């Protein structure tokens, strides 16, 4: 009959978690993901408005069943205060990227500066041979920019991974 354990479609989910900012909490959460075989696309951690709490934004790929398990398993952790699977269409998502581009001559420099302006990025460092650009936005936008400047030669790059908040007045409450 094939009643149980049907295959479902995979999609990308953004999980926002409020956690107690204790030593080892990142290891606990990362360990949970690796142990249960959930794939993390990106994870960001930072402090919040409450001093002893941190917010983690975790991007995972998986079907609904896996996502349900991820959220439930996260909720089981004592140091996790609140978990939410954010609605991708109803949240503000941002990522920051620093990219060092090979620009040995004036023409390449001016071209990269132009592109940066179009993408509303910033030139944050400059040298004879390179420009470092800061670019913020959705992951798509950053991908597009990187694609554009790839022809110049990317010397180095650092992306933060996605961080996100729900739109509107709703918040993750610190009550389970």
């Amino acid at each position, binding site marked *: 009959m094939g009643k149980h*354990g049907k295959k479902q479609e995979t999609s990308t989910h953004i999980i926002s978690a409020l956690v107690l900012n204790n030593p080892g909490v990142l290891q606990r959460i990362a360990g949970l993901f690796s142990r249960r075989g959930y794939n993390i696309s990106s994870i960001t951690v930072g402090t919040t408005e409450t001093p002893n709490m941190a917010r983690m934004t975790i991007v995972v790929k998986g079907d609904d069943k896996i996502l349900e398990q991820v959220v439930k398993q996260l909720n089981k952790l004592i140091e996790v205060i609140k978990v939410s699977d954010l609605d991708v269409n109803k949240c503000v998502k941002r990522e920051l990227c620093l990219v060092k581009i090979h620009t040995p001559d004036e023409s390449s420099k001016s071209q990269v500066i132009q592109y940066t302006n179009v993408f509303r990025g910033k030139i944050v460092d400059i040298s004879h041979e390179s420009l470092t650009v800061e670019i913020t936005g959705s992951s798509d936008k950053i991908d597009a920019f990187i694609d554009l400047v790839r022809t110049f030669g990317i010397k180095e790059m650092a992306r933060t991974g996605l961080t996100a908040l729900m739109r509107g007045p709703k918040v993750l409450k610190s009550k389970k």
Partner: protein
Amino acid sequence: MKGAEAFIKALEYEGVRVIFGYPGGALLPFYDALYDSDLIHILTRHEQGAAHAADGYARASGKVGVCVGTSGPGATNLVTGVATAYADSSPVIAITGQVPTRLIGNDAFQEIDALGIFMPIVKHNFQIRRSKDIPATVRAAFEIAKTGRPGPVHIDLPKDVQEEEFDIESNPIPAKVDLPGYKPTLKGHPRQVKMAAKAIMAAERPVIIAGGGVNISNATEELLKLAELCGIPVCTTLMGKGSFPEDHPLSLGMVGMHGTKPANYAVSECDLLIAIGCRFSDRITGDVSSFAPYAKVIHIDIDPAEIGKNVDVDIPIVGDAKLVLRDIIACLLKICGTEGKGLNNQNREEWLRYLESLKRSNIPKMDYEDIPIKPQRIVKELMDVIQELKLKDKIIVTTDVGQNQMWMAHYFKVHLPRTFISSGGLGTMGFGLPAAIGAKIARPESKVVCVTGDGGFMMNIQELATIADYEIPVVICIFDNRTLGMVYQWQNLFYGGRQCNVTFGESPDFVKVAKGFGIEAQRVTDPKDIKEVLREALLSDEPYLIDFVIDPSEGLPMVPPGGKLKNIIEPVRVPPRERIPSFQEIKRKLLGEAREKGLSKDGPQEMGTPVERETY
């Protein structure tokens, strides 16, 4: 007051009477504080023994078991025991010593990242870095271990924190701990409860699977009431054994890979499956896609993550089994009254008759006269002697892991909760003997029988010394076939009989071993002697070991892994034929190979001889 003293005080505050442990350098202040305390400390012979004993204590009593090991190897030795407790949701506090905080991270002597090692095998863990945190941390640890879905909690305790002076007046033990991220759901949602009651009323072919959660939440009375009120047959998981009296007409025995035919058929044919405190492990479901194919599923569990994890559920109820069952019963009584008005009785009687006939036609044969002894016969005699000596409500059985465990699970009838203690989820060989120590200490008035195999017994055989030292009267029954029987059975069934490293030789003589430890022992080779020896062992108030020499070719009926539950196959009974090579043979082989490769006769061990190698 020193940190260690405060720690002991905090343990006492939690009602701890007994701890199982093994001292070491990083625990010197802890043991020094223990010197002045009323706590009973059982010194095991290995930290693993301490962890299993604490687990056995917890399972037999329902209280929190406590074990202690020192830093480094002491901590790693606890790991198997703690993981065992985690897999079976047993409330255990594992305390490890740790090097002083100033040395942490320096690869100091006997330093290990205990926090990191224990993290994936505990419900939660702590490292206490200041002595003033001791009272609140211990409180939190116990709260977490014993509430909700119970589980082990680990506390890492650096040596300097144990020695640090602090003022208990200004840091008293808090009555309540603040755990903002922890609030288990106990009461089932009324709407779900009502839906469950309605489904139960409508069902024609209902069946209950009772898991370990029923034992843990002391819901046996409620389970019995529900089953009798609505005439619902009950099967249990391994961990659920004891949650329903197995001599009850509605009992179907254990379900799953080594389940009984009536139980497996009932689950496969039911139209309503009521799963209580079970997690649908692969050992229960077999092939998930064909599990309970016609059934609507009600799943009651205190852990929301278990619901929908392995099996799709129609009516999920998150809550404590006892409370949810009470609510369902109340709901049913309200709608149907005590006479069961509106229950789908007509069709249900047919269902019960069908299962009854399955039960009658599948009474297992147990009265074998064979020599070597068939294990079924020992199980039968054990049940008979328990009956004869009127020990039914006093007996606690611990098992090891493997065939001995499954023979007991399949054939041995358990009547009361917390009297069948076995490592289910992790399947830890070596569990049985130390768990028996814990069970006997937890319930000193009970009769504790440890059923074990020769393999698992030797994994913690050192605990015989603990049993001898403290004169702990447990009866140890070794099902001795000199074979790693479960692996042997699978090799015979699924690997073309290619027996590979599943045979033990004639060493040791377990009777002599036991006597060497100062423990009374007997070997039994004839089925006619089983009863007499068991009687003597159970009546004696001293430790007693019985070495039952059993037929190594005997196996268990089973569902092949990932198979359909109704597809129960019989074991192939082939005698072990594996030969164990002697060291001399191994030596000849090794040296012969060395010669073939053109090495000197002493081989590459000869220092300074350049060995020609292929370059990569």
